[in-house]
């Protein structure tokens, strides 16, 4: 317990310091872009959110594979945690992207390939969470979620490749960072966003485990002897 608390404090201090460094670099060190001006600075939070969203989706994919292979509730809880964080990060990507689009291209949304596939990704993981809440049986829920989690991941390469393979009038395949200060700022922004995202997955996973254990204990206390009730699990 004390070790866990030390980890939490260490993480909190690391995140705070990294966030401060990133914010200071973004505000004062990184110059404005020649073409887009100050608007380009949205990129420093937009890209780390997007990459971490992909990593969260990958977590769901690996957890789904692990569950189908080993049938352990551990994997199911990890998948559920990854999916929630994936939805959260995708929401951040879409919203920051929309704000950038509004100011850079004078439109909140355009049905271009990358934007459409990104919206699809968000929807796919929202549906994943809806599937989890709609199935009563824990075993059935875990299997269906795992199969769905595997197939939902197929959209990630589509998001990645869409701007590269299909001509996109708005979203560029790559954003060119002209100076070293801009590149450093982007790298530094990855640190707090990645730390917070990983921390959220771990925290949600631990909470899922605790809820499952709690439900198991409650079921053991309430169900009369002779009837075996399986553990509830996380919707």
């Amino acid at each position: 317990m004390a070790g866990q608390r030390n980890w939490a404090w260490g993480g909190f201090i690391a995140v705070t310091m990294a966030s401060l460094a990133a914010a200071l670099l973004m505000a004062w060190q990184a110059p404005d872009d020649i073409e887009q001006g100050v608007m380009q600075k949205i990129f420093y939070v937009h890209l780390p959110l997007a990459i971490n969203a992909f990593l969260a989706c990958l977590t769901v994919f690996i957890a789904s594979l692990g569950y189908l292979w080993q049938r352990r509730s551990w994997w199911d809880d990890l998948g559920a945690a990854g999916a929630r964080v994936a939805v959260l990060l995708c929401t951040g990507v879409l919203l920051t992207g929309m704000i950038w689009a509004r100011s850079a291209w004078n439109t909140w949304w355009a049905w271009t390939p990358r934007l459409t596939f990104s919206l699809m990704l968000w929807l796919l993981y929202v549906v994943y969470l809806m599937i989890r809440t709609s199935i009563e049986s824990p075993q059935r829920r875990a299997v269906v979620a795992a199969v769905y989690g595997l197939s939902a991941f197929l959209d990630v390469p589509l998001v990645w490749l869409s701007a590269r393979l299909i001509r996109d009038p708005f979203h560029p395949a790559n954003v060119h960072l002209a100076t070293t200060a801009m590149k450093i700022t982007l790298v530094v922004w990855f640190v707090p966003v990645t730390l917070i995202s990983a921390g959220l997955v771990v925290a949600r996973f631990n909470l899922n485990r605790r809820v499952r254990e709690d439900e198991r204990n409650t079921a053991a206390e309430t169900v009369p002897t002779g009837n075996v009730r399986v553990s509830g699990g996380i919707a």
Partner: protein
Amino acid sequence: MMHTRYVIAAYVIGVGLLLGYGLLLWLEGRRLSRRQRKNGGGR
């Protein structure tokens, strides 16, 4: 000035979402601990 507002809004939303969810998880954990203590079980 207008563009600066957009940039600030993007950062508030991007970082705020992450921190907000973190806070939600912390509250949920506390609620669970309290419930477990009340039931006399748990860790």
